[in-house]
């Protein structure tokens, strides 16, 4: 029983990490409808961002967010203007191949800039473990979970209670309708891309406190994030969180009770099974895209 609880705790903590990673994707895909196959590489770059800040300033990576968030937002807006804007009306395959090309650029760019070595950041709390009732919880994951909770709360209230947030929801549901009430759709898309990149920045920073970064690390993240977002239901933040939790807990249970080599197999199969039953994901609503 103790072990079971430990597994669930670990699963939930890993789940929040996953949710954090998938959040940016969920927003960008949910709003812009952009199929970003370079998402994992965006996270990789964010991790390098956190690494660089702590390397040069010695700050805790989380504090570095005060520098990274504005930069990410501007990058998101810029990326939208330069690339995404041209893509969103193109067919899906164009999204996939163009962002695949982008991931080439990011990966090899990172390889040139940072070499291929593994880089990581050490913090005061890297080694700290919280020990209670025979359960172990490590601080980097606790802080990661806290960051995730704060970010999600901020996001949900932003989307619900501000005008820009409402506009983002409106644009993601009905682009034409949004135009008809005078919303500058491209501006909103650019803001959404900026917010998406900010979420990615937070996840990268949180990851760098307990993961090493190297140029090809994004490849693993990419598929995982996609599975989570689609499993939860597109454009639904609660869905993304639930999807992440399901996958992380499943990984834990399969790894412990069944076979460590088959953890990914288990979640792929579950993903397929859930899609067979609910073709739009767990929280997905059957929608029609204009």
């Amino acid at each position, binding site marked *: 029983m103790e072990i079971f609880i430990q597994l669930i705790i670990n699963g939930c903590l890993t789940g929040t990490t996953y949710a954090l990673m998938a959040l940016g994707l969920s927003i960008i895909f949910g709003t812009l409808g952009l199929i970003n196959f370079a998402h994992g590489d965006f996270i990789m770059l964010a991790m390098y961002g956190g690494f660089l800040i702590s390397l040069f300033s010695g700050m805790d990576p989380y504090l570095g967010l005060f520098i990274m968030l504005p930069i990410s937002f501007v990058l998101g807006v810029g990326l939208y203007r330069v690339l995404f804007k041209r893509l969103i009306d193109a067919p899906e395959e164009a999204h996939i191949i163009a962002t695949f090309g982008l991931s080439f650029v990011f990966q090899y760019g990172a390889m040139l800039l940072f070499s291929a070595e593994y880089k990581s950041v050490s913090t005061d709390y*890297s080694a700290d473990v919280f020990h209670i009732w025979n359960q172990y919880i490590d601080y980097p994951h606790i802080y990661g979970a806290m960051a995730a909770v704060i970010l999600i709360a901020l996001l949900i209230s932003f989307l619900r209670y501000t005008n820009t947030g409402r506009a983002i929801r409106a644009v993601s549901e009905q682009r034409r309708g949004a135009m008809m009430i005078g919303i500058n759709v491209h501006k909103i898309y650019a803001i959404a891309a900026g917010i998406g990149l900010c979420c990615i920045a937070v996840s990268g920073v949180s990851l760098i406190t307990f*993961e*090493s970064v190297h140029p*090809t690390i994004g490849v693993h993240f990419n598929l995982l994030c996609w599975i989570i977002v689609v499993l939860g239901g597109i454009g639904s933040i609660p869905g993304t969180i639930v999807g992440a939790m399901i996958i992380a807990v499943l*990984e834990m249970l399969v790894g412990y009770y069944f076979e460590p080599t088959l953890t990914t197999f288990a979640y792929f199969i579950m993903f397929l099974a859930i899609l067979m039953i609910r073709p739009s994901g767990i929280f997905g609503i059957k929608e029609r895209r204009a």
Partner: protein
Amino acid sequence: MKRAFTNYVVITMVCLFILPFGSFAMADAGSKTVKIGVILPLTGPQAPIGREVLRGIEVAADMVNDMGGIWNKQKISLVTGDAANSESARTETERLITVEKVKLLIGVYSSSLAFIVHPIADKYNVVFWETNAIADRLRQMGHENTYFFGPMASGWGSQAADCVVELIAPKLKKDPKELKIAVVYQGTEWGKSLSHDGFVKRANELGLNIVIDAPYDPNTMDFSSLILKIKRTNPDIVHTQNYLDDGYRLFRDARKNGLNPKVWIADGCPWAYVDEAFQKFGDDMNYVLDLNQVAGGNIWSLSPTTQSQYREFLDRYTKKYNVKSVAASSDVAVGFTSAIALFEHVLPAAGSLDPKKIAEVVNDLSLPATSTARPGGIKFAPQSDPVQAGQNIRAGVVARQIFNKKYYTVWPKDSAEIEAIFPAPPFGKRAFDDKNLEMLIK
């Protein structure tokens, strides 16, 4: 008809124009150079290590060239090929041989790629000097001109089991058979051949008690479930084999879930990035036992020339690539030691790159452990040997215990620098004073 003609021209031009593209790829080297091909994964997921090996080889070539080159002052010029995946391994090898006309190849580090690259070198009768591919079967493919400088998987794994019996059990003051050993490894060719086919097999022969034999999926983000599974068996020794990021994750999750074995063996893991590991885990990295093919710290046991050569290498490496410290990044050293052995002991004596002459030299080669910074020494099995053809049979592994970002050789006994210290205290209490260490150094 004119219009149709333009069509033909457009399309065929495109296709004919593109083909010779590859040919002006490399600047033509002057006649006074000896072209040597280096085939390694330089991009893609295996690049971190491939690039390290390349750096080692580059430093070796620089050193030889600065000393005046080989054979009548000819300089060595390296031509690289990028074996990022199976197709590129094949095409790049083919390019190096047929377009660049290299007669000798060094590489390719990964066993999976070696299975593709070696047959091609063999087809063209080109000498292949393998730096570190370990899979046993590579030696049994009948390639006459392929030499394996590094150790072989089965030998490697079984030496680890010997180390448990000879070194660890006495330190823990227990009968080796009483020790509970957990074995974890990547579900890859490398992991399986080293841990399952090497270590576990030998451990069973020795009557050791393997409590868990667990391959895992290296893409797992969190190893807590595997760690808890191991923790339940309450092992004295955890024997791990892994690559970089899964290795870090495994260690991280062991620490976070309170798995505290008396000995943590990192066997064949590139823990060589020891700075990086200390950056992540701090003092908790102390006491880890690293089994690998390169001796970093025990250069004092080498012959004076080899010692100064190795020091020069470390010096050049830090300068050339602007690295702070080396701490014997083992893959750079693997590249360097393999290449320098070739440049120093084989090529001058052979006088040319002719495979037959090289074979003669290699066959006669018999150098003691003091002549290379790699453990063991150099002596190659004859090509007629069915199991270890072309294998450097003296290539061995050493066990090094890690203390404060440094490696200290502890096994085999005759090259040990310090007495190993086991059992390791639990995580969090592993700080180790350098002063105590000085007292340990023999």
